[in-house]
C-alpha cells in the first residue's frame, strides 16, 4: 500500500500501488473536476506531485498545460499512477466548484453543500464470479456515483435489514441517501428506483411566538415552500417565563410535544404548498432561543431561568428527528443551533451567521428585537453580547392602540410639522385598527421633529391644534380620527405610550453603549448595524436613529436582515460547512449581564431622552431637530 497525502488539506489515504491519483483523491473524498469521467480527455484534473514517485506520460497530454504549469510539474490525476508514497497538491481550480445560492436576507451567495445527498445507483447483480456482498456492492455503487468512499459509510442496522430484499425487489436499482453527521457518513435511507430528485431539507426558526419553516429542494438548491404558524406553546403561557413555570408544574412533555407539533404544522403546510411528501424531508435544521431549543429536545429548561442562568447544552446538537416526533423521513436528521447563555440562543447565533459579522475584521453591531432584545458587538476575533427586556411597547403592547403587525396596523407615519396632519400606511392598506412598533417609532420621531413633544416625550398641551389633547388620563395626540378607522374610535398615542416607548428604546441604546464601552469602541468604529427580528423588516432606520434607539451612524450602514434566525438556519441547511463555525462563534461570544453592569443604569437614564442626553453622540439628529425647531419657532 502507498500513502498519498493531499495538500493543502493534508488529507491522507492508503491505496494500492498502481492506482491513479484520481482514484485516491476520490477515495479521500476530494471532489476533483472530471468532466470526461477520468479518461484523460478533458484535462481538468490537473494536480502537482510534490514528493514521491509516479508514472505519467506528460508528453502525451502537453496540450492541457500552460508553460507555467509544466514548469511546476503538473500532471493529470486520472492518468498518473502511484508508485511510492506521495504528496500531491490539488489546486483550487481542479476542485469542483460548488453551486452557489443566494439566500433571502443574506447578501453574499452560499455554496450549495447540503449535508444529505441522494444517489441513484444501478448495480450489477451478484454472480458466482462476482460474489461480493450486497452492502459492499451498494456502497461501491454509491461511491462510483460520486458519493463518499464506501468503507467510510456507516449503515445503521435498520437500513441494513432492508438491503437484501430491496435490492432484489427493485432489480438492483435503488436510491440511497447519505447524510454527513458528526460521526461521519451514514446511509440513512434506501428506496427502490430513482427517487434521487426527491430530497428536501427544512430550515426552521422556532420562535416563542411564531414558527417559520423553509423547505428546500436539495437537488436544485431552490426554496420549495415556506410556511409559518403560531407556536402552539402559547396555550401554556404567553412568554417564556410562564412556559418554564408551566413545565415546572405540569412536566415538560406537553411543551415538548407542542413545540414539535408547531414545527410539524409548518412542515406540513410548506410540504402541501410545494406538493411534496414529508417522507422526502431528510434533514431539519432548527434555530431557536435557548429555552425553546431545550424544550424541543425535552431537556429541562428550569435551571436556565434561575440564577446563575446556566443552559444545559451550549453546543450544536445532531439527533434523529424522529426521536422528538418530527414528522419527516423516519431517518431524518435534526440539527440544532448552539446557544451561549440564557438569552443568547441559537436564534442569535443564526443572526450572526446570517449577517456574517463573525467573518470580518470590521466591527459590527447586531440588534435583535422582540419582546426581549439581544445585542451582539464584535468581529471575527471577539464578540460581546447582552440581552434585556425591551418591554412590549415595540411589539405594540402596553400602548393604548398598539398592536402586532397584522392587517390594519399602521406601520408607517409621517406628520406635517405645521398642520400636524399625519399620513399613514397600514398593513394590507385597509382602515387602521391600531399602530405597530414601527408605526410608533415613526410617530415618535415625527412628533419630536414637529415639536409636539419635548425631548423627554412630554406633549406640549399648549399647542393649539385639535389633534393635541389633554386626554382622559394623559395628554395625547390623535393619529387617526374615529371616522378614518376601522374601530370607530380615535387612534391616539398618549404621553404614557410615549414614556413606555422611550423606556424601550433607552434599554436598547443603553445595551449597545454598554457593549461598546466594554469593548472600548465608539460609534465611529462600527461599520455596520444589523437589525434582526420580525420587527426589523418594517423598521424606518432613520426614525430609529432620530429617537435614539441605536447609535447614530450613516443610514446606509444600517441593514435589516429581517428574520435572521431563519436565514441562519437556511444557510446551515444549504451549506453544512457553515455549521462548523457555529460552535466557534458560540464559544467566542462573551456574555455581559446588564444588571450586573454598574454603568448600565447611568447609560439607561442618559438614553431616556430624545435622542440622547449627550447630544454630541447624535450630531446628525441634533442638527435635524435644531432645524425643525428653528423652522417652527420655539414651541
Amino acid at each position, binding site marked *: 500500500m502507498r500513502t498519498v497525502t493531499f495538500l493543502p488539506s493534508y488529507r491522507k489515504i492508503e491505496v494500492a500501488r498502481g492506482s491513479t491519483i484520481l482514484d485516491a483523491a476520490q477515495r479521500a473524498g476530494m471532489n476533483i473536476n472530471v468532466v470526461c469521467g477520468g479518461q484523460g480527455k478533458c484535462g481538468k484534473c490537473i494536480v502537482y506531485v510534490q514528493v514521491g514517485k509516479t508514472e505519467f506520460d506528460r508528453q502525451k497530454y502537453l496540450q492541457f498545460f500552460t508553460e507555467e504549469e509544466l514548469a511546476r510539474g503538473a500532471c493529470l490525476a486520472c492518468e498518473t499512477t502511484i508508485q511510492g508514497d506521495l504528496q500531491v497538491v490539488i489546486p483550487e481550480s481542479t476542485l469542483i466548484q460548488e453551486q452557489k445560492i443566494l439566500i433571502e436576507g443574506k447578501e453574499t451567495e452560499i455554496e450549495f453543500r447540503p449535508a444529505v445527498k441522494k444517489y441513484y445507483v444501478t448495480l450489477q447483480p451478484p454472480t458466482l464470479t462476482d460474489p461480493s456482498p450486497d452492502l459492499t456492492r451498494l456502497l461501491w455503487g454509491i461511491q462510483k456515483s460520486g458519493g463518499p468512499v464506501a468503507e467510510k459509510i456507516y449503515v445503521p442496522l435498520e437500513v441494513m435489514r432492508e438491503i437484501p430484499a430491496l435490492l432484489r425487489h427493485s432489480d438492483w436499482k435503488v436510491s440511497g441517501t447519505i447524510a454527513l453527521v458528526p460521526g461521519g457518513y451514514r446511509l440513512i435511507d434506501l428506496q427502490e428506483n430513482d427517487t434521487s430528485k426527491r430530497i428536501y431539507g427544512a430550515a426552521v426558526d422556532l420562535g416563542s411566538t411564531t414558527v417559520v419553516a423553509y423547505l428546500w429542494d436539495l437537488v436544485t438548491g431552490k426554496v420549495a415552500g415556506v410556511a409559518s404558524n403560531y407556536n402552539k406553546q402559547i396555550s401554556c403561557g404567553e412568554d417564556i417565563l410562564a412556559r418554564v413555570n408551566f413545565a415546572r408544574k405540569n412536566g415538560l412533555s406537553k411543551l415538548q410535544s407542542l413545540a414539535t407539533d408547531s414545527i410539524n404544522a409548518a412542515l406540513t403546510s410548506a410540504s402541501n404548498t410545494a406538493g411534496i411528501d414529508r417522507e422526502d424531508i431528510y434533514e431539519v435544521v432548527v434555530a431557536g432561543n435557548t429555552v425553546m431549543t431545550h424544550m424541543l429536545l425535552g431537556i429541562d429548561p428550569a435551571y436556565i431561568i434561575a440564577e446563575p442562568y446556566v443552559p444545559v447544552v451550549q453546543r450544536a446538537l445532531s439527533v434523529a428527528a424522529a426521536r422528538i416526533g418530527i414528522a419527516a423521513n423516519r431517518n431524518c436528521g435534526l440539527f440544532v443551533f448552539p446557544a451561549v447563555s440564557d438569552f443568547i440562543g441559537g436564534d442569535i447565533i443564526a443572526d450572526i451567521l446570517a449577517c456574517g459579522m463573525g467573518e470580518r475584521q470590521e466591527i459590527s453591531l447586531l440588534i435583535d428585537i422582540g419582546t426581549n432584545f439581544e445585542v451582539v458587538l464584535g468581529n471575527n476575533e471577539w464578540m460581546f453580547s447582552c440581552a434585556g427586556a425591551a418591554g412590549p411597547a415595540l411589539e405594540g403592547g402596553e400602548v393604548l392602540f398598539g398592536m402586532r403587525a397584522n392587517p390594519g396596523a399602521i406601520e408607517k407615519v409621517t406628520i406635517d410639522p405645521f398642520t400636524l396632519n399625519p399620513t399613514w400606511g397600514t398593513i394590507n392598506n385597509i382602515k387602521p385598527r391600531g399602530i405597530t412598533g414601527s408605526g410608533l417609532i415613526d410617530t415618535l420621531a415625527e412628533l419630536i421633529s414637529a415639536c409636539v413633544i*419635548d*425631548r*423627554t416625550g*412630554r406633549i406640549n398641551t399648549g399647542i393649539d391644534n385639535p389633534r393635541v389633547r389633554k386626554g382622559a388620563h394623559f395628554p395625547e395626540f390623535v393619529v387617526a380620527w374615529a371616522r378614518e378607522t376601522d374601530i370607530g374610535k380615535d387612534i391616539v398615542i398618549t404621553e404614557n405610550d410615549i414614556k413606555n416607548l422611550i423606556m424601550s428604546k433607552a434599554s436598547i441604546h443603553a445595551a449597545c453603549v454598554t457593549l461598546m464601552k466594554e469593548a472600548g469602541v465608539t460609534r465611529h468604529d462600527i461599520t455596520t448595524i444589523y437589525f434582526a427580528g420580525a420587527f426589523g423588516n418594517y423598521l424606518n432606520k432613520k426614525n430609529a436613529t432620530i429617537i435614539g434607539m441605536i447609535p447614530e451612524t450613516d443610514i446606509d450602514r444600517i441593514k435589516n436582515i429581517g428574520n435572521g434566525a431563519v436565514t441562519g438556519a437556511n444557510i446551515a441547511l444549504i451549506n453544512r460547512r457553515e455549521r462548523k463555525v457555529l460552535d466557534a462563534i458560540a464559544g467566542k461570544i462573551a456574555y455581559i449581564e446588564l444588571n450586573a453592569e454598574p454603568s448600565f443604569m447611568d447609560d439607561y*437614564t442618559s438614553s431616556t*431622552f430624545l435622542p440622547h*442626553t449627550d*447630544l454630541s453622540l447624535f450630531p446628525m439628529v441634533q442638527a435635524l431637530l435644531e432645524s425643525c425647531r428653528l423652522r417652527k419657532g*420655539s414651541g
Partner: protein
Amino acid sequence: MGFDLQFGWTGTVSEVVLGRTRAEGGTRSVSYRIGGGTTLPFLDTDRPSPSPLIAFECCDNPRIWSTIVRDYCGDLVNDPAEWAKTAETVYGADMVRLNLTSTKERNFSDVAALKKTVESVLSATTLPLIIEGSNEPKIDSEVFLACGEAGQGERLLLGTAEASRYRSIAAAALAYDHSVIAQSPIDINLAKQLNILLREIGVARDHIIIDPYTGALGYGFEYSFSAMERIRFSALKGDADLAMPMCCAPADSLTIKEVRDAPADARDEMAVQWEVYTSIAAAVAGAEIICVRHPRSVGVLKEAFAGLKSHSHSRTAEVR
C-alpha cells in the same frame, strides 16, 4: 517637580446673578454673581475662591414646617417678612429662600395674598431672594407669574422647575427676567436633560441654577454628593449644559429619624449638625448656594466656609 494641582480643565461654571441692587435696577443692598469657577471648589489658589452663599429658608405658612424650627424661632414663623428680616440681621444669612407653603393647602387660590407676601418680604429684607412657588400644575402658572411680577427687577431665583413641569416657571422667569432652579432627582443625566429642556424654551444658561436634589445625610446624601461632584466635573470638562452653579437644599434634614428622635435638649444640636455636615460636604462637592432651615446653622457654616476659602500656600508656610 511641580506639585501643583493640574487637572487640565477646559470648562468654566457659568455665572449667574442673584438679586439686583438699586444701581442695577432693583432694591437689594447686594447682588451676587456666582459661578465662574474653573476648578473644583476651594482649590483655586491663585485667587480667592468665592464663598458659597447661605440661604436661610423661611415660609409663609408654618403648618408643615419643621417643629424644631418653629419652636426655636417662636412667633417669627407667623410673619414671613419679619422672619426674613431676622435672617438677614440676626442669623447673618446671605440670602432668604421664601417657601410659599400656603400653596400646598388644599384648594389654594389666593394668589393675590401670595403676591403681597412676596412684596412684604422684599421690603423687609435687603437680601436677594429665592422664591419657592407652588407644586401643582393647576395653579403653577398663576403663582409663578404673580411671584415674578412682584419681584420684577429684583432678579429673583424662582423654584422649582422639574422635567414634568417647567413651562410655567420658565414663562414667568422669561417674562420678568428672573432665574430658575432646575431640580432633578439625583442624577446627572436627568439634570442635564432638564437644562436642555429649559434652554430649548428660551431660558438662558446664565439664568439656571441646578438643584440635583439633596437627600438628607444618611438618606441618600451619598448619591447627591456624587451627583454634585459629577456635575461639577462635567462642567469643568466643558459640558455647557451642566455648567450651571448648583444649590444644595436638603429639605428633609430636619424631618429624618435621627433629628426627630433626638432627646429634647439635643434636638437643636442634632438639627444643626445634620445641616452642617451635609452642607460642608455639598459645598466641597460644588454647591454654591447652601439652603438651611435652622438659624444656628448659618453662623457655623459662615465660619467653616471662611476656613475653606483661606489657603496658606506651602511657600508662605516655609517662610514662616
